[in-house]
């Protein structure tokens, strides 16, 4: 196949050259006078590039001639696998070798160089860019573009031919909903920006792009709604992103860790999501979305605590139901955090708090257990965490084995063997289920770790320790900031407007303004009046009967 096109190419080129031979090579305006500037000799250029890339097998460098007599040489370079082979064939090679023949070149400025000629008339690829030095040439090649170099020219042309095998838009695996859009972000930056653009068609949605990572040269896009997002925060985000000087960015988590406000905290101060609708709603609230090429997880900043307890489905269900579920999540959060420590505190320090009957049954269960409650709890909680981690990392096919081991061997058998009490199993199960209710995986992790700290406090000081722990936890949370926005934002410092959509969610018509501390301009987002069922809906009552009689 290639040989054929080569041959076709050559013959074609010979014809081409006839037309081009009267043209003088124009003086070049060299924009970059770096050491890597493109030299006049094509062969030199190609050799340098080939050498710089270590003759990598996937980089394809071809040299051929345009025209018959003048033998104007041209070099085509692209990376196999990154560049879409059909595009390269159809729009670059075929153009250069075959289509040029049939081009109508009557009104062509004969002073133009090959480059300009091709740029203006021949290449039908969508996106053309001039490249002025070898560094950029390499960069374009390695990001999937096809670069053309010409003999006697110090400017190259890059044709956008990016196109590689990638995952399609699928249902997100981490944040699932029953009702709501089922599409999720993919690993491709362009697809992701497109998914958001499809939801927000406003011209206020601005996308800025930059390269991060000395070696990986990863594309990172910053998306925000101009006029809604806080300019200070946008500036701050850009400043922090520009500061990053790292060799590689493989996942948005790395960016997250490099730009977050506080490193030593268990709580995530940037929100990540796989769902375009969540990202879009974040944009509409004035947040800034950071998309990193190569990962479906996009970042939202600034993030506040309540955000991590919300699911996008809250807005797709009725407000009263959504509110109840949100409250349930907070209850689950507390349970996941405190149940084991409360169990330890009550059984070791405050037995008198329990009703007598419960106390008796508890005591009789714990009679055969050789360990103090703290050891018992730690044992079971650690076991559970191990099971959970194992379930995550092991191949899916063996997953069911884990549940058998977990449920039967460690649960029932441990109780029957008298190592732990039945109540402890209930406690562990309750915490486990509760911790899965927390919608954000990051926050769930924080809770998992904090639970052990609370257990320690409870073992040492009972309820006193737990309350002290809560005080420290809350003051830590209030001291956190995400890009200057207090982490517990609508709760403390309190903001009545914000509280309409934090612990509970009021009906959408009541969510009049955007979060105050996040977006600072254009605060009103919703001016729909509250539905009044009495005016217009009453009249159609008659019409259905009228229609049915017809």
């Amino acid at each position, binding site marked *: 196949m290639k040989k054929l096109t080569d041959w076709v190419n050559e013959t074609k080129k010979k014809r081409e050259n006839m037309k081009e031979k009267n043209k003088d090579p124009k003086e070049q305006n060299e924009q970059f006078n770096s050491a890597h500037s493109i030299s006049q000799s094509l062969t030199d250029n190609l050799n340098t590039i080939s050498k710089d890339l270590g003759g990598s097998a996937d980089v394809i460098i071809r040299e051929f001639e345009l025209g018959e007599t003048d033998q104007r040489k041209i070099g085509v370079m692209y990376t196999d696998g990154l560049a879409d082979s059909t595009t390269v064939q159809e729009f670059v090679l075929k153009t250069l070798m075959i289509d040029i023949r049939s081009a109508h070149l009557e009104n062509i400025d004969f002073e133009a160089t090959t480059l300009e000629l091709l740029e203006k008339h021949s290449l039908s690829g969508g996106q053309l860019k001039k490249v002025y030095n070898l560094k950029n040439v390499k960069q374009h090649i390695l990001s999937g573009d096809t670069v053309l170099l010409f003999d006697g020219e110090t400017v190259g042309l890059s044709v956008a031919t990016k196109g590689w095998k990638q995952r399609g838009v699928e249902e997100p695996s981490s944040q699932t909903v029953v009702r709501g859009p089922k599409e999720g972000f993919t690993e491709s930056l362009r697809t992701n920006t497109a998914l958001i653009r499809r939801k927000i068609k406003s011209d206020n949605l601005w996308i800025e792009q930059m390269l991060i990572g000395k070696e990986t040269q990863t594309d990172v896009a910053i998306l925000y709604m101009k006029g809604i997002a806080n300019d200070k925060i946008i500036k701050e985000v850009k400043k922090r992103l520009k500061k990053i000087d790292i060799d590689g960015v493989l996942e948005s988590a790395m960016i997250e860790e490099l730009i977050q406000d506080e490193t030593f905290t268990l709580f995530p101060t940037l929100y990540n999501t796989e769902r375009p609708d969540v990202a879009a709603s974040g944009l509409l609230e004035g947040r800034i979305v950071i998309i990193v090429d190569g990962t479906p997880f996009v970042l939202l900043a600034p993030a506040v605590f309540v955000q991590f307890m919300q699911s996008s489905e809250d807005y797709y269900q009725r407000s009263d139901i959504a509110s109840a579920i949100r409250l349930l999540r907070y209850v689950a959060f507390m349970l996941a955090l405190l149940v084991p420590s409360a169990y330890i505190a009550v059984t070791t320090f405050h037995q008198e708090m329990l009703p007598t009957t419960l106390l008796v049954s508890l005591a009789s269960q714990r009679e055969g257990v050789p360990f103090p409650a703290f050891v018992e709890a730690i044992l079971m909680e650690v076991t559970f965490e191990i099971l959970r981690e194992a379930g995550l990392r092991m191949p899916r096919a063996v997953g069911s084995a884990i549940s058998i081991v977990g449920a039967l061997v460690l649960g029932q058998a441990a109780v029957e063997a008298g190592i732990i009490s039945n109540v402890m199993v209930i406690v562990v199960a309750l915490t486990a289920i509760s911790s899965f209710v927390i919608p954000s995986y990051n926050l769930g992790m924080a809770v998992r770790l904090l639970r052990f700290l609370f257990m320690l406090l409870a073992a040492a*000081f009972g309820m006193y320790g737990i309350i*002290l722990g809560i005080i420290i936890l809350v*003051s830590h949370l*209030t001291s956190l900031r995400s890009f200057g926005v207090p982490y517990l934002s609508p709760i*403390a410092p309190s903001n009545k407007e914000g509280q309409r959509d934090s612990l509970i969610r009021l009906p959408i018509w009541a969510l009049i303004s955007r979060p105050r501390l996040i977006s600072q301009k254009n605060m009103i987002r919703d001016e729909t009046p509250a539905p009044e069922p009495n005016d217009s809906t009453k009249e159609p009552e008659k019409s259905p009967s009228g229609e049915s009689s017809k």
Partner: protein
Amino acid sequence: MIGSSKEKISQKQLTSMIILFTIGSAILFIPSFLANVAKQDAWISAIVATVLGLFTVLFYSKLYKLYPKKSYFECATFILGKWIGGAVILITYIYFFILSSLILWDLGEFLKTQVLVQTPIQVILILFMLTVIYTVRLGIENVGRTSEVFLPWVLGLFLLMCVFLIWSLEKGNLLPYLEKGVMPVLHGSYYLLSFPYLELIIFLMITPYVNKETKVQKSFLQGTLVAGGLLITTTFLCILVLGADVTARNTFPVYVLGKMVSVGEFLERLEIIIAIIWFLSIYFKLAIVFYVLVASLSDFVKAKDYRPITLPLGMLLVVMSPIMFTSTMQVASFDKEVFFPLTYIVGFFLPLIVYIAGKIKHKKRGI
């Protein structure tokens, strides 16, 4: 202004701090104090004291309005000069120090006798002090925000408590009214006015941080009203449920109140609720006093930051508290003989002097 000037407290944060400060430690002790002198009329003295307390905070907010950007100490030196002002500051500072060790002692006493009988008291105190130090190091703004988070919890739990107690009220306990005339009632009010209300003078040290000057008076009144309501209700409930005698005899009558709760067969012994309410409020009380202690001390020597001295001063408090206060009896007599009069001097007479002098100064300048 003491501490770093960047911090800002909102009006709501000030209100919630005032509420928590006022009920802190008082809620547990006051019913007993009042019932001791006023017997079944304790709730009347609570009402009288709260009304007087409202006037006091009104006076405080007037004092604040003289120089809204200055803390009380700065006001004192500015108005009264270096020496007299310095004396005022010294007395007030000593008072704050005693107050904080007293709070610490209250806490230790309660935990030692009621909750953690076996744990050594030093450990309890150190742990508590570390918590306070941690939060104070994060700044007063942070204390304010934390109080905003906890206030609904405290109020909610209190309400819950009241609801549970409805079943065990006994009206007969209130009778007869004013058995021994007005004097015992006023005696109780004398205690209550000094115990939480006059202590509110400390808020004049942090009012400069409030972001809206005009709202401070509202905060003071609102906070005192809510806290006063809580204290009155608590006293009322104690008398109604326990009777005047039991209330007077117990050091922590409210805690006993919690033990009395019995709804149906399953909800019993909810003293943990009381413990949580009291614990949270006393924590805020100590945090605020401690913040003022460290911030004003570091401000006095014109240090850059108050944070480095939090640990040493906390250590000093933990050491001094058990040395200064040794037993319940001693503290009770100390309260009556020394602390209450001292509170009246620090919380009323000294500010009055400052206020009058400030007014005169204002007038002079006006002419």
